């Protein structure tokens, strides 16, 4: 889990002191902009060269960038409908996981007794790969949508719960003393002290949870959806329509990136006080 957190937390460091490691010319804004897109340009060129010059047949598994772009353009209405369909699974599942994960995580994290009761269970149930619940959830719940929401919820819940517990745990002694001196009630303590203090941890959990949500969403859609992003890719793969399939993959990547960016923006705004 910690590796995964590290992976999700991995961000392009804004102004790395790399400039100081390479004495002499520090790149200007144009140079930096070029550096940040160089991998894209190389990959795009390699893709283009490979699709033009390799003998891949009439319906290549690697359609050229131009053909893919056309497929993407043509599929946009369908992809947009798929996005909306996916979001009706993702948003309820992730929102519920966030709400319950925070409330239960902070409640458990501030009570030694609740920790003794729940943490042994969480230790076993948390690491179970949520994908294994998918067939069962589909069999047990009345609609596909409900089972997919449930699976997204399970996947996002544990990282948020565990990080909320860790955040409540990490609360400094001085804040606890302060809350006691001010005579805060248990609820005020949770809302005005523990919750904000645990927010950095909670956002880490939410980032992991959101990444899990997308994985589970697309996997669940492979099983039984009639719309959605994962479904789109699977559908055109079944018909060997590789341009549309690749377009679907790129589009899904973009949507995931946007969602993570929005979450990161919320995190920055909420943690402005953090020094």
């Amino acid at each position, binding site marked *: 889990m910690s590796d995964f957190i590290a992976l999700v937390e991995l961000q392009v460091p804004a102004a790395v002191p790399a400039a100081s490691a390479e004495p002499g010319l520090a790149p200007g804004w144009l140079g930096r902009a070029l550096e940040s897109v160089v991998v894209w340009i190389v990959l795009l060129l390699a893709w283009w060269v490979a699709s033009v010059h390799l003998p891949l047949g009439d319906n290549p598994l690697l359609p050229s960038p131009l053909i893919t772009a056309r497929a993407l353009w043509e599929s946009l209405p369908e992809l947009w409908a798929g996005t909306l369909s996916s979001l009706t699974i993702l948003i309820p599942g992730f929102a519920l996981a966030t709400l319950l994960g925070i409330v239960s995580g902070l409640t458990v994290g501030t009570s030694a007794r609740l920790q003794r009761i729940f943490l042994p269970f969480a230790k076993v149930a948390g690491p179970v790969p949520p994908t294994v619940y998918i067939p069962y959830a589909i069999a047990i719940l009345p609609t596909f949508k409900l089972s997919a929401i449930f699976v997204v919820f399970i996947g996002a819940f544990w990282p948020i719960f565990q990080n909320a517990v860790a955040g409540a745990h990490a609360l400094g002694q*001085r*804040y606890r*003393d*302060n809350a*006691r*001196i*001010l*005579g*805060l009630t248990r609820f005020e303590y949770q809302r*005005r*002290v523990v919750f*904000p*203090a645990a*927010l950095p941890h909670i956002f880490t959990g939410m980032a992991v949870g959101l990444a899990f949500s997308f994985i589970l969403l697309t996997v669940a859609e492979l099983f039984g959806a009639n719309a959605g992003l994962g479904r789109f890719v699977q559908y055109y793969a079944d018909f060997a329509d590789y341009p549309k399939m690749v377009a679907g993959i790129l589009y899904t990547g973009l949507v995931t990136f946007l969602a993570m960016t929005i979450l990161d923006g919320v995190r920055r705004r909420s943690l*402005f*006080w*953090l*020094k």
Partner: protein
Amino acid sequence: MSPGLKLEGVGFAYDTTQVLQDINVTIPEGQFVSLLGASGSGKTTLLRLAAGLDPVDSGRLTWNGAPIVGPSLERGVVFQDYALFPWLSVVDNVEIAIAKAKPTVRKAERLAEAARYLGGLGLGAAIGKYPGELSGGMRQRAAIARALALGSPLLLMDEPFGALDPVNRARLQDLLLEVWEVATPRKTIIFVTHDVDEAIYLGDRLVVLGSSPGRVIADLEVPLQRPRERRSLLDSHSLHALREQVSATLVQDTLQRLKAA
């Protein structure tokens, strides 16, 4: 019922270490007591006991005759490390104290009152700022404003100026005396410090703790008139004599401890 803070044979142990042993001190209401001692002499522990953050292991600890069993708004605390909530603006940090002290007052009035306290400590221009945006001295002013806003008759201060530079330190010492001297009735203050000059300049009385285990090794009146004038005090004979006496007591305690070890 005896007014003020009374410690009768108070002891406290942490695991197997006796931190405080047989402390007997009576602090009348309105007195400013400086609590001195080397690090490890249990000054902070004593303050935590008086605040009700930790329970005494032996003896009796009472405030105005009633045993201290937990934290109460009667006893405000200012910690060394500021301990403002960094996610609340300065004015909200004070407002949260007023909300507990005066739950019936409306929010707008509480904010106005918080702004008044902050203004009184020279933070009028910084009320909307967050603790992370302030200097150490400003944060400590805000922490004092919050403790005052609780309206507690007893104020427990744990090396509140310990992390400040000398100029800010002197400024805040004067500010604290000013605030304390104008109030009626005066608050009872226990001010923990390991700076002998600070202890003398501020206090009516010095209580000196020796270490291992913490116990009272000196209890002295400070024979200086108020209001005190920093500049003229520098040449005062009684200040020098007192400083010598306290320093000698502390050195002797350290030597004894080294010999025992």
